[in-house]
């Protein structure tokens, strides 16, 4: 393992891989710092650039975007009180008060160094666990895969805060997208409604790009009244000078906090399609609960920044584990990576690491080196980032849309994919407006085919349906699905009762 990792590191520091990694990380830092531009959108923008590259070059660029985005998001959170991305919301709670109290450099670099440490601890887990988990997954038959995918869908749908039914329906609609076109086992045409393009099924990348990019762009556009800039005013005179050794010591002298926050980030990352926003809030909440001075949280203490930033970078490692060991995207960013792998003819899943060892260890190495690259970008460039976030959205959004069009078109050089982008762009915006979560939908689109294939394979191998329950791993996974669903139901009931009680109090 260490030999392969060493070879991966030696590989990734070559100029042909380091340049895309550097550019990806730079774009990620900028995208992460821009409020209103998520890491998902940034990775979607980068996607078309990877089509002409080798697989490892493209994936290095995307991993750079992911790591850079998670790190860059804290810049505006700390210095302006505006989170650059959802996974930096909790960083704002203590980062901005600390900056306002006259320590902007300390707030910023506490976040950066906590991101680096959290990310590197996550790398240990990524390298050590992906292989064994993939080996475990190799023992899976179609029953286990079917149950695993059902678990993934039920967990994501259940974790939706607004409505459990909407979460489930969103996942089901995602599966509906995959049943249009040829059936994946015998290739028989079905439900094409006479549309020739549908005969080959709907490609998932234009769906993903359309849903995520347009849902976000249009949600921003609806709040625009003209040429509003990303940020209105930036105090460019503030000093960000700080003793880095002191800041590092502030983090390392709290090892339990660092390790626990990293662990939370990893666990959330491993769970499908939840993402860094949950990791960062949960880690912040845990840090507050276990703190000896919880009343100080929100006033600008280092624990809040460390917990939030260590967890969101570790979350990246967790997401990469899930995609590399099981072929299930841990979040929207890894869903795009899954698409990039597919374009290059690489199948992710349990066999990925054994069949593509150079690529897999190259990805591990890219993840590790991306942290150093992010640091190298931020050390001299933080002040520049504050200028870049001044770019007007009126310029940014049309350019992002053009790159989305290229990304969809270049998949197989057909304008039909651009029409898919348009249709699902409108659909995605509609889903957001009606309160439907996007994550279960996308997971349904990605896993729908696999659920069907494994269901049919299982039935073709043995028509006894009880095998789904009596095979230990499959049964365990289905039981976990039921428990996850029950827990979500209980949680929703509790929230509803609490809301009703609060309304009752207000009424009387």
């Amino acid at each position, binding site marked *: 393992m260490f030999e392969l990792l060493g070879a991966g590191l030696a590989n990734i520091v070559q100029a042909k891989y380091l340049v895309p990694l550097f550019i990806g990380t730079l774009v990620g830092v900028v995208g992460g710092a821009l409020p209103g531009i998520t890491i998902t959108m940034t990775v979607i923008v980068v996607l*078309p*650039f990877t*089509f*002409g*590259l080798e697989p490892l070059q493209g994936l290095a660029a995307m991993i750079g975007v992911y790591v850079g985005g998670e790190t860059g998001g804290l810049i505006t959170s700390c210095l302006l009180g505006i989170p650059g991305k959802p996974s930096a919301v909790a960083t704002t709670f203590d980062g901005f008060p600390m900056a306002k109290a006259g320590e902007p450099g300390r707030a910023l670099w506490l976040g950066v160094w906590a991101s680096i440490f959290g990310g590197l601890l996550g790398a240990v887990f990524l390298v050590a666990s992906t292989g064994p988990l993939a080996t475990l997954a190799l023992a899976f038959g179609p029953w286990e895969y079917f149950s695993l995918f059902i678990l993934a869908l039920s967990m994501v749908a259940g974790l939706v805060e607004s409505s459990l*039914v*909407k979460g*489930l*329906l969103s996942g*089901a*609609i995602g*599966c*509906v997208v995959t*049943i249009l076109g040829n*059936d994946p*086992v*015998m290739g*028989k045409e*079905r*439900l094409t*409604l006479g549309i020739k393009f549908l005969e080959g099924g709907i490609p998932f990348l234009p769906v993903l790009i359309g849903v995520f990019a347009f849902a976000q*762009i*249009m949600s921003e*556009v*609806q*709040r*625009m*009244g*003209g*040429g509003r800039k990303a940020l209105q005013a930036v105090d460019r005179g503030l000093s960000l000078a700080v003793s880095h050794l002191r800041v590092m010591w502030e983090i390392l002298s709290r090892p339990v906090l660092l390790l626990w926050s990293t662990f939370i980030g990893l666990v959330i990352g491993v769970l499908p399609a939840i993402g860094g926003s949950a990791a960062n809030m949960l880690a912040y909440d845990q840090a507050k609960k276990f703190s000896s001075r919880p009343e100080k949280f929100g006033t600008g203490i280092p624990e809040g920044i460390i917990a939030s930033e260590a967890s969101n970078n570790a979350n990246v490692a967790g997401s990469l584990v899930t995609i590399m060991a099981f072929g299930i995207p841990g979040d929207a960013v890894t869903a795009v990576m899954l698409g990039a792998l597919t374009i290059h003819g690489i199948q992710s899943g349990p066999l990925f690491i054994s069949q593509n060892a150079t690529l897999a260890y190259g990805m591990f190495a890219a993840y590790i080196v991306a942290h150093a690259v992010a640091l190298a970008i931020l050390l001299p460039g933080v002040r520049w980032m504050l200028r870049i976030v001044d770019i*007007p*959205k*009126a*310029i940014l*959004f*049309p*350019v992002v*849309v*053009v*790159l989305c*069009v*290229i990304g969809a*078109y*270049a998949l197989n050089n057909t*304008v039909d994919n*651009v*029409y898919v*982008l*348009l249709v699902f*762009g*409108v659909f995605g*915006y509609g889903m957001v407006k009606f309160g439907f979560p996007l994550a279960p939908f996308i997971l349904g689109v990605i896993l*729908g085919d696999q*659920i*069907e294939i494994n*269901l*049919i394979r299982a*039935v*073709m191998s043995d*028509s006894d349906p009880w095998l789904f329950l009596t095979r230990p791993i499959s049964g365990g996974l289905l039981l976990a699905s039921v428990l996850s669903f029950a827990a979500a139901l209980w949680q929703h009931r509790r929230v509803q009762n609490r809301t009703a009680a609060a309304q009752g109090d207000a009424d009387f």
Partner: protein
Amino acid sequence: MLSASLVLFGLTLGLKDNPLVPIGPGFYPRIVLGVTAALSLWLVVADAAGRRSRKPAPAPDHNYLLVGLMFLLFGLYCGALAFLGYRLSTVLYVAAANALLDPPRGARGWGRVALVAVLTAFLTHLVFERYLTVLLPRGTWTGF
């Protein structure tokens, strides 16, 4: 969603089974569409029941006209790609979208709009076609 899933469910009933496979091509779609229809129905009923007791929420101050126009513009861009080609349609789209989101004032403003549009089309075309060997759409009317 309820009606769409019911229509599609009806269509799956016409799918013939294959003698080589114990379950036909309509088996899984029927499960998915059945679940979708059931969940949609649940939502419709829950919404109808909740509407009676719910107080109307204050309307948010959102610029839906701008969203509609942006989608319309994007639709026109998608349609124009096949006829005008990537470069010309991108110049027109970026200029129009930029002008719509931030209406230019005076010659300087229009100059900025034109510059952003031309630069976007030129740079993306250069990078993708020349360096990344990604072919971009050619227009049937323009030939480029």
